[in-house]
Protein backbone atom coordinates (compact mmCIF):
# COMPACT_ATOMS: atom_id res chain seq x y z
CA UNK A 1 0.00 0.00 0.00
CA UNK A 2 1.33 3.39 -0.88
CA UNK A 3 1.85 6.04 1.73
CA UNK A 4 -1.30 8.09 1.73
CA UNK A 5 -1.38 11.79 2.22
CA UNK A 6 -4.38 13.79 3.35
CA UNK A 7 -5.19 11.25 6.00
CA UNK A 8 -6.00 12.52 9.48
CA UNK A 9 -4.95 10.12 12.16
CA UNK A 10 -5.61 9.84 15.86
CA UNK A 11 -3.06 7.77 17.71
CA UNK A 12 -5.01 5.86 20.32
CA UNK A 13 -2.74 5.54 23.29
CA UNK A 14 -5.22 3.85 25.60
CA UNK A 15 -4.83 0.07 25.51
CA UNK A 16 -7.66 -1.74 23.74
CA UNK A 17 -8.27 -5.35 24.65
CA UNK A 18 -9.46 -7.15 21.57
CA UNK A 19 -11.99 -9.99 21.61
CA UNK A 20 -9.26 -12.38 20.45
CA UNK A 21 -7.41 -11.74 23.72
CA UNK A 22 -4.60 -9.51 22.47
CA UNK A 23 -4.23 -5.95 23.66
CA UNK A 24 -3.23 -3.15 21.32
CA UNK A 25 -2.19 0.41 22.14
CA UNK A 26 -0.68 3.43 20.44
CA UNK A 27 -2.45 2.39 17.28
CA UNK A 28 -3.52 4.73 14.47
CA UNK A 29 -7.17 5.46 13.81
CA UNK A 30 -7.66 7.33 10.56
CA UNK A 31 -10.70 9.58 10.36
CA UNK A 32 -12.30 12.40 8.43
CA UNK A 33 -14.81 15.05 9.45
CA UNK A 34 -17.31 17.20 7.57
CA UNK A 35 -19.16 20.28 8.76
CA UNK A 36 -18.39 21.85 12.09
CA UNK A 37 -19.00 20.99 15.69
CA UNK A 38 -21.25 23.59 17.37
CA UNK A 39 -20.53 25.20 20.73
CA UNK A 40 -22.90 22.89 22.57
CA UNK A 41 -21.16 19.96 20.89
CA UNK A 42 -24.53 18.32 20.37
CA UNK A 43 -24.61 18.11 16.58
CA UNK A 44 -22.11 15.31 15.96
CA UNK A 45 -23.00 12.27 13.89
CA UNK A 46 -20.69 9.28 13.84
CA UNK A 47 -21.01 7.45 10.52
CA UNK A 48 -19.79 3.86 10.34
CA UNK A 49 -18.65 2.56 6.98
CA UNK A 50 -19.39 -0.81 5.41
CA UNK A 51 -17.01 -3.60 4.34
CA UNK A 52 -15.18 -1.78 1.58
CA UNK A 53 -15.85 1.81 2.63
CA UNK A 54 -13.50 4.21 4.34
CA UNK A 55 -13.52 7.49 6.24
CA UNK A 56 -14.01 9.55 3.08
CA UNK A 57 -17.79 9.64 3.24
CA UNK A 58 -18.49 12.45 0.80
CA UNK A 59 -16.81 14.88 -1.55
CA UNK A 60 -13.85 13.66 -3.55
CA UNK A 61 -11.92 10.88 -1.89
CA UNK A 62 -8.34 12.24 -1.86
CA UNK A 63 -6.87 8.78 -2.34
CA UNK A 64 -9.09 7.26 -5.02
CA UNK A 65 -10.04 10.64 -6.57
CA UNK A 66 -13.60 9.38 -6.81
CA UNK A 67 -16.78 10.48 -5.06
CA UNK A 68 -17.01 9.47 -1.43
CA UNK A 69 -19.03 6.29 -0.85
CA UNK A 70 -22.03 8.08 0.70
CA UNK A 71 -22.08 11.23 -1.42
CA UNK A 72 -25.79 10.80 -2.11
CA UNK A 73 -26.67 10.96 1.59
CA UNK A 74 -24.02 13.17 3.17
CA UNK A 75 -23.19 16.75 2.25
CA UNK A 76 -24.45 20.29 2.20
CA UNK A 77 -28.26 20.24 2.21
CA UNK A 78 -28.38 16.46 1.91
CA UNK A 79 -29.97 13.89 4.24
CA UNK A 80 -27.06 14.08 6.64
CA UNK A 81 -26.66 17.80 6.19
CA UNK A 82 -23.09 18.93 6.76
CA UNK A 83 -24.29 22.55 7.05
CA UNK A 84 -26.06 21.46 10.20
CA UNK A 85 -24.26 18.44 11.57
CA UNK A 86 -20.67 17.59 12.34
CA UNK A 87 -20.03 14.29 10.59
CA UNK A 88 -17.23 12.04 11.77
CA UNK A 89 -16.20 8.81 10.09
CA UNK A 90 -13.25 6.59 10.91
CA UNK A 91 -11.61 3.87 8.92
CA UNK A 92 -12.29 0.64 10.85
CA UNK A 93 -9.36 -1.10 12.47
CA UNK A 94 -8.35 -3.94 10.19
CA UNK A 95 -8.97 -1.60 7.25
CA UNK A 96 -6.55 -0.21 4.72
CA UNK A 97 -7.11 3.55 4.64
CA UNK A 98 -4.76 4.51 7.42
CA UNK A 99 -6.21 2.78 10.47
CA UNK A 100 -4.34 0.00 12.22
CA UNK A 101 -4.55 -2.94 9.87
CA UNK A 102 -2.77 -5.93 8.37
CA UNK A 103 -0.80 -3.76 5.93
CA UNK A 104 0.90 -2.01 8.87
CA UNK A 105 4.34 -2.88 10.10
CA UNK A 106 4.63 -5.02 13.19
CA UNK A 107 6.96 -3.00 15.46
CA UNK A 108 8.36 -6.19 16.98
CA UNK A 109 9.34 -7.96 13.78
CA UNK A 110 9.68 -4.87 11.57
CA UNK A 111 7.68 -6.80 9.00
CA UNK A 112 4.24 -6.11 7.57
CA UNK A 113 1.68 -7.90 9.77
CA UNK A 114 -0.17 -9.73 7.00
CA UNK A 115 -2.02 -12.61 8.62
CA UNK A 116 -0.07 -12.09 11.86
CA UNK A 117 -2.45 -9.21 12.47
CA UNK A 118 -4.88 -10.05 15.28
CA UNK A 119 -8.38 -11.08 14.21
CA UNK A 120 -10.64 -8.17 14.99
CA UNK A 121 -14.40 -7.99 15.56
CA UNK A 122 -17.18 -5.46 15.11
CA UNK A 123 -16.95 -4.95 18.87
CA UNK A 124 -13.24 -4.10 18.56
CA UNK A 125 -13.95 -1.65 15.72
CA UNK A 126 -16.53 0.19 17.81
CA UNK A 127 -14.34 0.20 20.92
CA UNK A 128 -11.54 1.76 18.90
CA UNK A 129 -13.82 4.48 17.52
CA UNK A 130 -15.25 5.52 20.90
CA UNK A 131 -11.91 7.28 21.42
CA UNK A 132 -12.97 9.86 18.83
CA UNK A 133 -15.59 11.20 21.27
CA UNK A 134 -12.96 12.08 23.86
CA UNK A 135 -10.72 13.46 21.16
CA UNK A 136 -13.41 15.91 20.02
CA UNK A 137 -14.74 16.51 23.54
CA UNK A 138 -18.17 15.14 22.65
CA UNK A 139 -20.18 13.80 25.58
CA UNK A 140 -23.06 12.53 23.54
CA UNK A 141 -23.41 12.07 19.81
CA UNK A 142 -26.56 13.29 18.15
CA UNK A 143 -26.60 10.16 16.06
CA UNK A 144 -24.81 6.98 15.06
CA UNK A 145 -25.58 5.93 11.50
CA UNK A 146 -24.46 3.17 9.19
CA UNK A 147 -25.56 0.70 6.54
CA UNK A 148 -24.63 -2.97 6.19
CA UNK A 149 -21.53 -3.55 8.36
CA UNK A 150 -21.94 0.09 9.38
CA UNK A 151 -25.36 -0.84 10.75
CA UNK A 152 -23.84 -3.69 12.74
CA UNK A 153 -21.45 -1.16 14.27
CA UNK A 154 -24.43 1.05 15.16
CA UNK A 155 -26.04 -1.85 17.03
CA UNK A 156 -22.82 -2.78 18.78
CA UNK A 157 -22.11 0.86 19.65
CA UNK A 158 -25.47 1.34 21.35
CA UNK A 159 -25.08 -1.95 23.15
CA UNK A 160 -21.61 -0.99 24.44
CA UNK A 161 -22.31 2.70 25.06
CA UNK A 162 -26.06 3.01 25.67
CA UNK A 163 -25.98 6.69 26.65
CA UNK A 164 -23.49 7.97 24.09
CA UNK A 165 -25.94 8.65 21.27
CA UNK A 166 -29.35 10.32 21.14
CA UNK A 167 -30.43 8.56 18.00
CA UNK A 168 -29.34 5.42 16.17
CA UNK A 169 -29.96 4.50 12.56
CA UNK A 170 -28.98 0.97 11.57
CA UNK A 171 -29.68 0.52 7.87
CA UNK A 172 -29.93 -2.69 5.82
CA UNK A 173 -28.19 -4.81 8.42
CA UNK A 174 -28.57 -7.73 10.76
CA UNK A 175 -27.95 -8.55 14.39
CA UNK A 176 -26.33 -11.84 13.50
CA UNK A 177 -24.53 -12.91 10.33
CA UNK A 178 -26.47 -15.70 8.65
CA UNK A 179 -25.05 -18.90 7.18
CA UNK A 180 -25.63 -17.43 3.72
CA UNK A 181 -23.73 -14.24 4.67
CA UNK A 182 -20.82 -16.31 5.98
CA UNK A 183 -20.90 -18.50 2.89
CA UNK A 184 -20.51 -15.54 0.54
CA UNK A 185 -17.70 -14.10 2.64
CA UNK A 186 -15.94 -17.45 2.68
CA UNK A 187 -16.19 -17.58 -1.11
CA UNK A 188 -14.39 -14.23 -1.24
CA UNK A 189 -11.72 -15.28 1.17
CA UNK A 190 -11.08 -18.52 -0.67
CA UNK A 191 -10.79 -16.64 -3.94
CA UNK A 192 -8.02 -14.54 -2.38
CA UNK A 193 -6.32 -17.57 -0.84
CA UNK A 194 -6.44 -19.38 -4.18
CA UNK A 195 -4.42 -16.61 -5.79
CA UNK A 196 -0.80 -17.80 -5.77
CA UNK A 197 0.34 -14.23 -5.14
CA UNK A 198 -1.39 -14.21 -1.79
CA UNK A 199 1.49 -16.25 -0.37
CA UNK A 200 -0.32 -17.04 2.87
CA UNK A 201 -0.78 -13.33 3.42
CA UNK A 202 2.89 -12.45 3.00
CA UNK A 203 2.60 -10.81 -0.43
CA UNK A 204 3.87 -7.41 0.76
CA UNK A 205 7.39 -8.66 1.39
CA UNK A 206 7.44 -10.06 -2.13
CA UNK A 207 6.12 -6.86 -3.66
CA UNK A 208 3.26 -8.62 -5.35
CA UNK A 209 -0.51 -8.42 -4.86
CA UNK A 210 -3.17 -11.14 -5.11
CA UNK A 211 -5.15 -8.91 -7.43
CA UNK A 212 -6.84 -11.71 -9.36
CA UNK A 213 -8.15 -13.36 -6.20
CA UNK A 214 -9.28 -10.07 -4.71
CA UNK A 215 -11.02 -9.11 -7.96
CA UNK A 216 -12.96 -12.39 -7.99
CA UNK A 217 -13.90 -11.85 -4.34
CA UNK A 218 -15.23 -8.43 -5.24
CA UNK A 219 -17.12 -9.72 -8.28
CA UNK A 220 -18.88 -12.40 -6.25
CA UNK A 221 -19.72 -9.98 -3.47
CA UNK A 222 -20.93 -7.37 -5.91
CA UNK A 223 -23.61 -9.72 -7.19
CA UNK A 224 -24.96 -10.04 -3.66
CA UNK A 225 -25.31 -6.26 -3.42
CA UNK A 226 -27.69 -6.11 -6.40
CA UNK A 227 -31.09 -7.60 -7.04
CA UNK A 228 -32.00 -10.03 -9.79
CA UNK A 229 -34.51 -7.55 -11.15
CA UNK A 230 -32.04 -4.69 -11.01
CA UNK A 231 -29.42 -6.72 -12.89
CA UNK A 232 -31.93 -7.86 -15.47
CA UNK A 233 -33.16 -4.34 -16.13
CA UNK A 234 -29.70 -2.84 -16.34
CA UNK A 235 -27.94 -5.57 -18.31
CA UNK A 236 -30.36 -8.26 -19.41
CA UNK A 237 -28.55 -10.31 -22.03
CA UNK A 238 -27.03 -7.27 -23.71
CA UNK A 239 -23.73 -7.91 -25.45
CA UNK A 240 -20.53 -6.00 -24.79
CA UNK A 241 -19.34 -4.06 -27.87
CA UNK A 242 -20.16 -6.89 -30.23
CA UNK A 243 -23.04 -7.88 -32.47
CA UNK A 244 -23.05 -11.57 -31.71
CA UNK A 245 -21.67 -14.23 -29.41
CA UNK A 246 -18.00 -14.98 -30.01
CA UNK A 247 -18.05 -18.63 -28.94
CA UNK A 248 -15.24 -18.06 -26.47
CA UNK A 249 -14.66 -16.94 -22.92
CA UNK A 250 -14.12 -13.25 -23.36
CA UNK A 251 -16.70 -10.99 -21.81
CA UNK A 252 -19.49 -11.43 -24.37
CA UNK A 253 -22.15 -10.06 -22.06
CA UNK A 254 -22.27 -6.59 -20.57
CA UNK A 255 -22.78 -8.03 -17.11
CA UNK A 256 -19.49 -9.94 -17.42
CA UNK A 257 -17.66 -6.85 -18.51
CA UNK A 258 -19.26 -4.83 -15.72
CA UNK A 259 -18.22 -7.32 -13.05
CA UNK A 260 -14.68 -7.56 -14.39
CA UNK A 261 -14.46 -3.78 -14.27
CA UNK A 262 -15.76 -3.70 -10.69
CA UNK A 263 -13.14 -6.28 -9.74
CA UNK A 264 -10.29 -4.43 -11.44
CA UNK A 265 -10.97 -1.02 -9.93
CA UNK A 266 -11.40 -2.54 -6.50
CA UNK A 267 -7.91 -4.03 -6.34
CA UNK A 268 -6.41 -0.59 -6.87
CA UNK A 269 -7.91 0.71 -3.67
CA UNK A 270 -8.26 -2.24 -1.35
CA UNK A 271 -5.91 -4.56 0.47
CA UNK A 272 -6.55 -8.30 0.18
CA UNK A 273 -5.64 -9.06 3.78
CA UNK A 274 -7.93 -6.29 5.00
CA UNK A 275 -10.68 -7.95 2.99
CA UNK A 276 -10.05 -11.19 4.87
CA UNK A 277 -10.02 -9.48 8.27
CA UNK A 278 -13.09 -7.36 7.77
CA UNK A 279 -15.22 -10.15 6.31
CA UNK A 280 -14.15 -12.27 9.29
CA UNK A 281 -15.27 -9.55 11.67
CA UNK A 282 -18.68 -9.52 9.96
CA UNK A 283 -18.97 -13.30 10.16
CA UNK A 284 -18.13 -13.28 13.86
CA UNK A 285 -20.83 -10.67 14.48
CA UNK A 286 -23.60 -12.21 16.53
CA UNK A 287 -25.16 -9.73 18.93
CA UNK A 288 -27.82 -12.31 19.78
CA UNK A 289 -25.18 -14.71 21.07
CA UNK A 290 -23.36 -11.90 22.89
CA UNK A 291 -26.51 -11.57 24.96
CA UNK A 292 -27.10 -15.28 25.45
CA UNK A 293 -29.83 -15.58 22.90
CA UNK A 294 -31.82 -12.51 23.88
CA UNK A 295 -31.14 -9.61 21.55
CA UNK A 296 -33.39 -7.32 23.60
CA UNK A 297 -30.85 -7.36 26.41
CA UNK A 298 -28.42 -5.59 24.09
CA UNK A 299 -30.69 -2.57 24.19
CA UNK A 300 -32.23 -2.67 27.64
CA UNK A 301 -30.12 0.20 28.98
CA UNK A 302 -30.47 2.66 26.14
CA UNK A 303 -32.76 5.63 25.76
CA UNK A 304 -31.62 6.23 22.21
CA UNK A 305 -34.31 6.78 19.60
CA UNK A 306 -33.93 4.19 16.86
CA UNK A 307 -34.87 4.35 13.23
CA UNK A 308 -34.45 1.11 11.32
CA UNK A 309 -34.51 1.07 7.54
CA UNK A 310 -34.56 -1.91 5.17
CA UNK A 311 -35.05 -2.31 1.42
CA UNK A 312 -37.55 -4.52 -0.40
CA UNK A 313 -35.00 -6.03 -2.82
CA UNK A 314 -32.16 -6.53 -0.32
CA UNK A 315 -31.65 -10.28 -0.11
CA UNK A 316 -28.30 -10.04 1.69
CA UNK A 317 -29.79 -8.46 4.82
CA UNK A 318 -33.49 -8.90 4.12
CA UNK A 319 -36.29 -6.93 5.75
CA UNK A 320 -37.10 -9.75 8.17
CA UNK A 321 -33.62 -9.58 9.72
CA UNK A 322 -34.03 -5.83 10.15
CA UNK A 323 -37.47 -6.38 11.62
CA UNK A 324 -36.01 -8.79 14.16
CA UNK A 325 -34.07 -5.83 15.53
CA UNK A 326 -37.29 -3.78 15.69
CA UNK A 327 -38.99 -6.61 17.55
CA UNK A 328 -36.12 -6.90 20.04
CA UNK A 329 -36.25 -3.16 20.65
CA UNK A 330 -40.01 -3.16 21.15
CA UNK A 331 -39.68 -6.00 23.62
CA UNK A 332 -37.78 -3.66 25.94
CA UNK A 333 -39.98 -0.69 25.16
CA UNK A 334 -37.31 1.23 23.28
CA UNK A 335 -38.26 4.15 21.07
CA UNK A 336 -38.11 2.64 17.59
CA UNK A 337 -39.43 3.54 14.18
CA UNK A 338 -39.14 1.34 11.12
CA UNK A 339 -39.69 1.62 7.41
CA UNK A 340 -39.02 -0.71 4.50
CA UNK A 341 -38.10 1.28 1.41
CA UNK A 342 -39.32 0.13 -2.00
CA UNK A 343 -36.29 -0.24 -4.26
CA UNK A 344 -35.04 -2.55 -7.02
CA UNK A 345 -31.43 -1.70 -6.28
CA UNK A 346 -30.81 -4.50 -3.80
CA UNK A 347 -28.57 -4.20 -0.76
CA UNK A 348 -26.68 -1.34 -2.42
CA UNK A 349 -29.84 0.81 -2.22
CA UNK A 350 -28.54 2.63 0.84
CA UNK A 351 -25.52 3.87 -1.15
CA UNK A 352 -27.49 4.94 -4.20
CA UNK A 353 -29.91 7.64 -5.22
CA UNK A 354 -33.07 6.19 -3.70
CA UNK A 355 -35.23 9.28 -3.01
CA UNK A 356 -37.64 7.63 -0.53
CA UNK A 357 -34.70 6.45 1.54
CA UNK A 358 -32.87 9.77 1.44
CA UNK A 359 -36.07 11.59 2.36
CA UNK A 360 -36.81 9.32 5.33
CA UNK A 361 -33.25 9.64 6.60
CA UNK A 362 -33.33 13.43 6.34
CA UNK A 363 -36.74 13.79 7.93
CA UNK A 364 -35.87 11.53 10.83
CA UNK A 365 -32.62 13.34 11.58
CA UNK A 366 -33.91 16.88 11.16
CA UNK A 367 -37.10 16.28 13.16
CA UNK A 368 -35.21 14.49 15.93
CA UNK A 369 -32.68 17.30 16.10
CA UNK A 370 -35.38 19.97 16.19
CA UNK A 371 -37.40 18.52 19.00
CA UNK A 372 -36.50 17.48 22.46
CA UNK A 373 -36.31 13.75 22.23
CA UNK A 374 -38.84 11.90 24.32
CA UNK A 375 -36.31 9.99 26.35
CA UNK A 376 -38.78 7.77 28.06
CA UNK A 377 -39.58 4.20 27.44
CA UNK A 378 -42.99 2.82 26.79
Amino acid at each position, binding site marked *: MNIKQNIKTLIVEKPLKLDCGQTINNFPLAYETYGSLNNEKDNAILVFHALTGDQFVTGINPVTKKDGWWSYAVGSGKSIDTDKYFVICANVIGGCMGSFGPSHENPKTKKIYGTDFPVITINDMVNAQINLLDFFGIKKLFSVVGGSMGGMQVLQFISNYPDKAKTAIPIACTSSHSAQNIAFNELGRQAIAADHNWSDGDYNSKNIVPDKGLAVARMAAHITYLSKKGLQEKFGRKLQERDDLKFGFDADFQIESYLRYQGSVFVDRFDANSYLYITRAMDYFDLVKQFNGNLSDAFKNTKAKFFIISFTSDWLYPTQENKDIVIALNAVGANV*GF*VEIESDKGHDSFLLNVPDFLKALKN*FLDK*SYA*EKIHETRI
Partner: protein
Amino acid sequence: MQKKFMKPEYKIISDLIEKDAKVLDVGCDDGTLMEFLKTNKNANIRGIEISKEKVQICIAKGLTVIEGNAEFDLKQFPNNSFEYVVLGQTLQAFINPETVIRELLRVGNKAIVTIPNFGHWKVRLNLLFKGTMPITNSLPHDWYNTPNIHMCTIKDFVRFSKIINFKIFKSLALINENVSDINNSNLIFKNLFGELGIFLIEK
Protein backbone atom coordinates in the same frame (compact mmCIF):
# COMPACT_ATOMS: atom_id res chain seq x y z
CA MET B 1 -57.12 2.51 3.47
CA GLN B 2 -59.14 5.66 3.38
CA LYS B 3 -60.34 6.99 6.66
CA LYS B 4 -62.75 9.77 7.28
CA PHE B 5 -61.56 11.14 10.56
CA MET B 6 -63.82 13.73 12.01
CA LYS B 7 -62.39 16.38 14.30
CA PRO B 8 -64.85 15.52 17.10
CA GLU B 9 -63.50 11.98 17.04
CA TYR B 10 -60.00 13.18 17.99
CA LYS B 11 -61.45 15.22 20.78
CA ILE B 12 -63.47 12.29 22.12
CA ILE B 13 -60.48 9.93 22.01
CA SER B 14 -58.29 12.55 23.63
CA ASP B 15 -60.83 13.04 26.42
CA LEU B 16 -60.68 9.33 27.20
CA ILE B 17 -56.91 9.45 27.73
CA GLU B 18 -55.00 10.76 30.74
CA LYS B 19 -52.15 13.22 30.41
CA ASP B 20 -48.67 11.76 29.71
CA ALA B 21 -50.17 8.35 28.87
CA LYS B 22 -48.29 5.79 26.85
CA VAL B 23 -50.35 5.23 23.74
CA LEU B 24 -50.12 3.06 20.64
CA ASP B 25 -52.11 4.16 17.60
CA VAL B 26 -52.81 1.09 15.49
CA GLY B 27 -53.26 1.99 11.85
CA CYS B 28 -52.09 5.51 12.61
CA ASP B 29 -52.57 6.72 9.03
CA ASP B 30 -50.79 10.05 8.46
CA GLY B 31 -50.27 10.57 12.18
CA THR B 32 -52.92 13.29 12.63
CA LEU B 33 -54.38 11.70 15.74
CA MET B 34 -50.88 11.00 17.10
CA GLU B 35 -49.98 14.66 16.76
CA PHE B 36 -53.25 15.66 18.37
CA LEU B 37 -52.64 13.43 21.38
CA LYS B 38 -49.02 14.56 21.62
CA THR B 39 -50.05 18.21 21.66
CA ASN B 40 -53.12 17.92 23.84
CA LYS B 41 -52.17 15.16 26.23
CA ASN B 42 -48.38 15.12 26.01
CA ALA B 43 -48.86 11.45 25.18
CA ASN B 44 -45.81 9.24 24.74
CA ILE B 45 -47.15 7.91 21.50
CA ARG B 46 -46.11 5.31 18.96
CA GLY B 47 -47.82 4.26 15.78
CA ILE B 48 -48.07 1.26 13.51
CA GLU B 49 -49.10 1.72 9.91
CA ILE B 50 -49.25 -0.57 6.89
CA SER B 51 -48.78 2.02 4.14
CA LYS B 52 -45.21 3.04 3.28
CA GLU B 53 -46.40 6.45 2.07
CA LYS B 54 -48.22 7.13 5.32
CA VAL B 55 -45.19 5.99 7.34
CA GLN B 56 -43.10 8.51 5.39
CA ILE B 57 -45.58 11.27 6.25
CA CYS B 58 -45.38 10.32 9.93
CA ILE B 59 -41.57 10.36 9.84
CA ALA B 60 -41.69 13.81 8.29
CA LYS B 61 -43.80 14.88 11.26
CA GLY B 62 -41.23 13.49 13.67
CA LEU B 63 -43.51 10.70 14.88
CA THR B 64 -42.25 7.28 15.91
CA VAL B 65 -43.99 4.86 13.61
CA ILE B 66 -43.35 1.26 12.66
CA GLU B 67 -44.33 0.04 9.23
CA GLY B 68 -46.32 -3.09 9.81
CA ASN B 69 -49.58 -4.97 9.68
CA ALA B 70 -51.51 -4.79 12.94
CA GLU B 71 -52.91 -8.26 12.29
CA PHE B 72 -49.44 -9.83 12.53
CA ASP B 73 -47.08 -7.27 13.99
CA LEU B 74 -48.75 -6.48 17.30
CA LYS B 75 -47.33 -9.67 18.71
CA GLN B 76 -43.90 -8.06 19.02
CA PHE B 77 -45.13 -5.85 21.85
CA PRO B 78 -44.99 -7.33 25.33
CA ASN B 79 -48.11 -7.57 27.48
CA ASN B 80 -49.38 -4.23 28.80
CA SER B 81 -46.73 -2.18 26.98
CA PHE B 82 -49.15 0.70 26.64
CA GLU B 83 -51.77 2.32 28.80
CA TYR B 84 -53.99 2.81 25.78
CA VAL B 85 -54.12 1.25 22.35
CA VAL B 86 -56.22 3.13 19.81
CA LEU B 87 -57.82 1.50 16.80
CA GLY B 88 -59.60 4.15 14.77
CA GLN B 89 -62.08 2.98 12.13
CA THR B 90 -59.96 0.02 11.15
CA LEU B 91 -61.45 -3.03 12.89
CA GLN B 92 -63.69 -3.74 9.91
CA ALA B 93 -60.68 -4.12 7.60
CA PHE B 94 -59.07 -7.05 9.39
CA ILE B 95 -59.34 -10.66 8.35
CA ASN B 96 -59.80 -11.66 11.95
CA PRO B 97 -61.19 -8.85 14.13
CA GLU B 98 -61.45 -11.15 17.13
CA THR B 99 -57.68 -11.77 17.17
CA VAL B 100 -57.03 -8.08 16.74
CA ILE B 101 -59.24 -7.14 19.69
CA ARG B 102 -57.51 -9.75 21.85
CA GLU B 103 -54.11 -8.42 20.79
CA LEU B 104 -55.13 -4.82 21.52
CA LEU B 105 -56.17 -5.83 25.02
CA ARG B 106 -53.00 -7.83 25.57
CA VAL B 107 -50.68 -5.02 24.45
CA GLY B 108 -52.64 -2.25 26.16
CA ASN B 109 -54.26 -1.94 29.56
CA LYS B 110 -57.19 -0.38 27.77
CA ALA B 111 -58.18 -0.03 24.15
CA ILE B 112 -60.19 2.61 22.35
CA VAL B 113 -61.95 1.24 19.31
CA THR B 114 -63.99 3.35 16.92
CA ILE B 115 -66.25 1.82 14.29
CA PRO B 116 -68.16 3.34 11.40
CA ASN B 117 -71.72 2.26 12.17
CA PHE B 118 -73.22 0.06 9.45
CA GLY B 119 -76.54 0.25 11.29
CA HIS B 120 -76.95 3.95 10.48
CA TRP B 121 -80.31 4.75 8.92
CA LYS B 122 -78.76 6.04 5.68
CA VAL B 123 -76.96 2.75 5.16
CA ARG B 124 -80.18 0.86 5.88
CA LEU B 125 -82.23 2.99 3.51
CA ASN B 126 -79.57 2.73 0.84
CA LEU B 127 -79.79 -1.05 0.90
CA LEU B 128 -83.57 -1.10 1.29
CA PHE B 129 -84.38 1.16 -1.63
CA LYS B 130 -81.47 0.69 -3.98
CA GLY B 131 -80.91 -2.98 -3.32
CA THR B 132 -77.17 -2.55 -3.77
CA MET B 133 -74.35 -2.48 -1.23
CA PRO B 134 -74.47 0.91 0.48
CA ILE B 135 -72.03 3.63 -0.51
CA THR B 136 -71.91 6.61 1.82
CA ASN B 137 -69.49 9.41 2.67
CA SER B 138 -67.76 7.35 5.32
CA LEU B 139 -68.01 4.11 3.31
CA PRO B 140 -67.12 5.25 -0.19
CA HIS B 141 -66.08 1.92 -1.76
CA ASP B 142 -67.91 -0.54 -3.98
CA TRP B 143 -68.44 -4.02 -2.56
CA TYR B 144 -65.72 -5.49 -4.80
CA ASN B 145 -62.94 -3.06 -3.91
CA THR B 146 -63.67 -2.16 -0.33
CA PRO B 147 -61.00 -2.82 2.29
CA ASN B 148 -63.87 -3.01 4.78
CA ILE B 149 -64.56 -6.71 4.80
CA HIS B 150 -66.06 -7.00 8.30
CA MET B 151 -68.50 -4.16 8.68
CA CYS B 152 -70.49 -4.11 11.87
CA THR B 153 -73.06 -1.99 13.67
CA ILE B 154 -72.87 -0.41 17.09
CA LYS B 155 -75.25 -3.13 18.30
CA ASP B 156 -73.04 -5.82 16.75
CA PHE B 157 -70.02 -4.50 18.61
CA VAL B 158 -71.87 -4.52 21.92
CA ARG B 159 -72.91 -8.14 21.26
CA PHE B 160 -69.34 -8.96 20.21
CA SER B 161 -68.10 -7.83 23.65
CA LYS B 162 -70.31 -10.46 25.25
CA ILE B 163 -69.40 -13.19 22.80
CA ILE B 164 -65.63 -12.84 23.01
CA ASN B 165 -65.77 -11.56 26.56
CA PHE B 166 -64.32 -8.11 26.98
CA LYS B 167 -65.66 -5.23 29.02
CA ILE B 168 -67.02 -2.07 27.51
CA PHE B 169 -66.04 0.64 29.91
CA LYS B 170 -67.57 3.50 28.05
CA SER B 171 -69.51 3.65 24.81
CA LEU B 172 -70.24 6.77 22.88
CA ALA B 173 -72.05 7.60 19.67
CA LEU B 174 -71.26 10.42 17.33
CA ILE B 175 -74.33 12.00 15.75
CA ASN B 176 -73.95 15.16 13.66
CA GLU B 177 -70.69 16.01 15.43
CA ASN B 178 -72.35 15.65 18.82
CA VAL B 179 -71.27 12.97 21.20
CA SER B 180 -73.61 11.09 23.50
CA ASP B 181 -73.51 8.07 25.78
CA ILE B 182 -74.83 4.74 24.60
CA ASN B 183 -76.66 2.63 27.15
CA ASN B 184 -79.00 -0.35 27.12
CA SER B 185 -82.15 1.77 26.91
CA ASN B 186 -81.04 3.93 23.97
CA LEU B 187 -79.03 1.35 22.05
CA ILE B 188 -81.65 0.88 19.32
CA PHE B 189 -81.83 4.63 18.78
CA LYS B 190 -78.05 5.18 18.78
CA ASN B 191 -77.61 2.25 16.44
CA LEU B 192 -79.95 3.95 13.99
CA PHE B 193 -78.55 7.49 14.22
CA GLY B 194 -74.94 7.08 15.31
CA GLU B 195 -72.43 7.61 12.51
CA LEU B 196 -69.59 6.36 14.61
CA GLY B 197 -69.34 4.22 17.72
CA ILE B 198 -66.50 4.90 20.14
CA PHE B 199 -65.72 2.28 22.75
CA LEU B 200 -63.31 2.24 25.64
CA ILE B 201 -62.74 -1.42 26.37
CA GLU B 202 -60.88 -3.61 28.85
CA LYS B 203 -60.13 -7.26 29.26
